[in-house]
């Protein structure tokens, strides 16, 4: 069952509808409820390899619904330390819990100051309202 619309206060957001939860020198990344809803039920997750480098504003993988493919845009730069295998096996987890069980990758940050360029929840919500 798809989750209800929400945008947690404690996350940082990227305009391409991705979120980051910073935990020390690492960050957990995922896509927002808005992105998951727009795509519809996810049926495929093409993750990066563990150890790969991801760059801010660049694609690090793909998610697909029956009808659409979407690039995953990294809000921050770093090295992939973990891929959420649960989403590889059951991509619909992202629709059910986009900010919890539906996280996509964990990275070790290479440039922590990049966080200053991300949106807080208020800025992300006003971006959604403008669409």
């Amino acid at each position: 069952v798809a989750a209800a619309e929400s945008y947690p206060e404690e996350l940082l957001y990227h305009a391409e509808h991705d979120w980051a939860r910073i935990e020390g020198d690492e960050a957990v990344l995922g896509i927002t409820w808005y992105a998951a809803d727009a795509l519809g039920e996810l049926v495929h997750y093409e993750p990066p390899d563990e150890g790969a480098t991801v760059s801010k504003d660049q694609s690090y993988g793909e998610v697909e619904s029956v009808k659409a493919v979407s690039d995953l845009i990294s809000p921050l730069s770093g090295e992939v330390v973990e891929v959420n295998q649960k989403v590889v096996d059951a991509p619909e987890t992202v629709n059910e819990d986009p900010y919890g069980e539906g996280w996509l990758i964990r990275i070790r940050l290479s440039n922590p100051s990049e966080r200053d360029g991300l949106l807080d929840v208020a800025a992300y919500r006003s971006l959604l309202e403008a669409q």
Partner: protein
Amino acid sequence: VQTLRRTPLYEKHVAAGARMVPFAGWEMPVQYTGVIPEHKAVRTDAGVFDVSHMGELEVEGPTAHELLQQRLSNDIAKVTPGEAQYTLITNEDGGVIDDLIVYRLDEHRYLLVVNASNRETDFDWLKEHELRGSDVRDVSDEYALLAVQGPRALERLGLPKARAFTWEMTSLDGIEVMVYRTGYTGEEGVELACMEEDAPALWDFVVGRGVTPCGLGARDTLRLEVCYPLHGNDIGPQWDAISSGLGWVCALDTGFTGAERLREIKERGPERRLVAFRMIEKAIPRQGMAIERGGEVTSGSLSPMLDVGIGLAYVPAGESAPGSEVVVDVRGKPRRAEVVKKPIYKREET
């Protein structure tokens, strides 16, 4: 600015929470709750699709039969009043201008239900070749069309079983409808044509019988699982009917437009063929993806019933036999797939 047209059921779709998208010049529902649940509703119970965007052309007169025998690929002589037939409009090269279903209304009157995007092309083509004693009219705006499909469709509507590719007039909840025993899902079911102004009441009746509203998204995945080609994706004027696997609807001895060319292709054997495939490796094929060693995916999706990537593709004839392995270029990554027999999904016989 081209404005999008709306079917008489537009308000019903919006009220039901549909996501509306542009399709062939129309604003149509792509989904209500989701492609996968709608798809499964049709495979296990019953679903209803608004297909009022499709075109309806009427051909009438003492020479209507002759006109259609010349311009349609299948043998119209096999269709008696009350029956219907799947057929093609082909060009001189045997390319597929459109695929359609022709219903014989009475001795000298036929109804052609054609793809929305080809309505004008088909009309112009037939009009151009009109014979003395045949009249071609575009009656699309007079009718609404609902497809009600699924193993429980007849039971939910209270309709008796009937032979596929026949039609009859009946009344449903006081509404006059033409019941066509045809569909695009591979399931038992009907298509219901009614006057445009009756469409909202007919929709309410059908949905009130517990039939699930379904959008174009599920319509596409349902037809792909059973390998019904989609004009504009899998078939078109650039591919001849033999290569497209539609030789079975080409009665070459009737002398229709393109028949000679198709006979040559059939005798020589086509260079490539439209085949069905399923992915061996985990990936979802999409329209336009290249097949290594030649060929192209023309339709691709995840199969909701099989939970695997499936598609239709043109491949070299030598690699078109079921069991052949092909490699799909999935955005730069090679992914293995196997050519399979059509249909890809077959309902279990009970």
